[in-house]
């Protein structure tokens, strides 16, 4: 698992993936996104050289692009997708502890987060925290709603809805 983080600029993905391809690597599942002016890459890579050789190959590119590089050997691979069945949308005046409060309540119901993305909207004086979570849960929508019901009094709006995936 490669992690690369640095100030955003055009050409990062092209340069990094080009170097990996030349080194004989296969690229797998990836998450690449701009967060707060930084560009972040988490990328599954197989084949090619050892982690140490891979690091040696990528290090000059990372330095050149101003990216921090981290490599973790991991055992996972492709084709291990889970299909989320629950969508959770959260919105509240930005303050410490929103993510923790919501996800703790969900975790107590056995909810498994597959994807979480969040953003701070509004303006600097009155920021609004917005978070979307997709995940798997054996607990019913009603049970999950019950589990987060207490947060309403804290000014956190949590909307929980089923995701019905259409296979056709």
């Amino acid at each position, binding site marked *: 698992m490669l992690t690369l983080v640095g100030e955003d600029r055009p050409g990062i993905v092209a340069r990094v993936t080009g170097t990996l391809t030349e080194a004989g690597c296969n690229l797998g599942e990836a998450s690449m996104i701009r967060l707060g002016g930084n560009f972040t890459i988490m990328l599954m890579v197989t084949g090619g050289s050892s982690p140490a050789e891979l690091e040696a190959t990528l290090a000059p590119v990372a330095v050149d692009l101003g990216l921090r590089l981290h490599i973790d050997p991991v055992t996972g691979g492709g084709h291990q997708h889970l299909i989320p069945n629950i969508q959770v949308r959260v919105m509240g005046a930005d303050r410490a502890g929103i993510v923790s409060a919501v996800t703790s309540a969900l975790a107590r119901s056995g909810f498994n987060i597959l994807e979480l993305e969040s953003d701070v909207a509004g303006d600097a004086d009155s920021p609004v925290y917005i978070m979307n979570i997709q995940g798997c849960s054996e607990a019913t929508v009603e049970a999950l709603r019950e589990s987060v019901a207490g947060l309403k009094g804290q000014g956190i709006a949590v909307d929980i*809805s089923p995701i*019905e*995936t*259409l296979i*056709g």
Partner: protein
Amino acid sequence: MAIREILKLPDERLKQVSAPVERFDADLLLAIADLEETRQAGPAAVGIAAPQVGWFERVVIVDVSTKKGVPNHGHLILVNPEIEHWEGFDMGREGCLSVPDYTGNVIRATRIRLTACTPQGKPLAFEMDGFEARAVQHELDHLDGLLFIDRVVSRRTDLFQRKVYAGKGRSGGGKPDANRRGDAGGA
């Protein structure tokens, strides 16, 4: 009857536009029976389109009646289907027998008016919404050589919330297109 092989990505034939059915005969009924048997054999598909089994005529089968609490018209065999009117839009998650091990969010019209023929050539007309309308749009795309992956939008492009504004100046009638965001930025 026979279970036919499902064409899977990146099979170029999936991009082919299918031809209207012209002969409503016994061969058509046999082919439809195969198509249904193939749908049933797969992983819980609510629909299947003829080109998915390498049969390039405009026939789809849709049946969302197995989904709890979903309004539906039962088991539908639609020959030469045409969507005549689209309304509203919503995002939903889709997968496909022809694209194993991948699901993605797709924008579809929430309400459609549809005409088609029965396998015997008799005219049909439906108004449908929600999940059933989504299934029909997904299957009809196959007839035009389109897969849901041609319409997938970023998982961060969350349109679910816009439901709140439903009825307030929503565009109606136009065919919805994938809402590709044109964010400026680097990378």
